[in-house]
């Protein structure tokens, strides 16, 4: 694999690479998911609620 030059291309080296990638993918993926949910909720909450004259029929 790509970084095999670092540790050789044994099974152990592959699994080391995959393990580290898995960690970054899972942690990073979770953070990205939170970010995407954040963006989505921003759209919803921008529809604000007025408390005073906006709700009364003038």
């Amino acid at each position, binding site marked *: 694999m790509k970084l095999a030059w*670092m*540790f*050789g291309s*044994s*099974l*152990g*080296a*592959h*699994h*080391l690479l*995959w*393990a*580290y990638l*898995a*960690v970054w993918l*899972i*942690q990073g993926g*979770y*953070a990205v998911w*939170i970010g995407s*949910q*954040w963006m989505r*909720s*921003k759209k*919803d*909450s921008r*529809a*604000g*609620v007025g*408390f005073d004259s906006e*709700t009364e*029929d003038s």
Partner: protein
Amino acid sequence: MTPVTILLVQSAYVRGKIEIVQRSRILGPLGIVWLGITLGVIAYATKLALFVAPTEATMGNVQRIFYYHVPTSMLSLLFPYVNFAASLCYLYWRRRDPLKALTADAVAISSAEVTVVYSTICLATGMLWGRAAWGIWWTWDARLTSMLLLWLLYVSYLMLRKLSSTGQTHTLAAVLSVFAAIDVPIVYMSIQWWRTQHPAPVFGGGADSGIDPSMKPAFWMNVLGWAMWGIFIMILRYALERRRQESEQEAALQAIEASLEIAK
């Protein structure tokens, strides 16, 4: 809905909203600084783990997974306690102070999700390490089985959250969290006894055997880095949950006011 009730709901909502706005003024920049430091620590810790720490004699380089695997496992045992404490707070405040109860609930779901993330990583890295080092993907030894059961418990918590009807979700999830927290020590003990009576192959070393002093810097740096990351990601998730709660409250308020319009 009487006018008095409307006023109470509105004032509680405004109170909550002001609270969130005030806190985000401090938390925003602080959060970014924390993230920066955390990423720096993790980068340094990874460098230590991959390049500075000595190569292990028998296993070779695959042992370096240990520097990610063991800190993550240790941390994944902490977040369940946060979830338990938050659920107890939720149950206590549920009738007494609903605003505080919502905060507790947000902490509960954040810590539950982070628990699942960390234990998933623990299981995945453990399996990759086990396969390369000892030739087997899995063994039903005490530690692995307990970790799998912890994972199952908190995934079931998240499923309950997803499948239960809104309005009930918080309370039911808090109750399940209490059950899960009581179950964790029982699970741990029962699996230990099981494996004492019927021994099975064990994924060796790790927490039991001592860590060679030359490995300690890399190990503890990784513990620090991933702990900082865990705190960061939990608070981020907490902020998201609070945001969602806020938009739910807004929607509820709109519904109440719309019904008032019709009633007029």
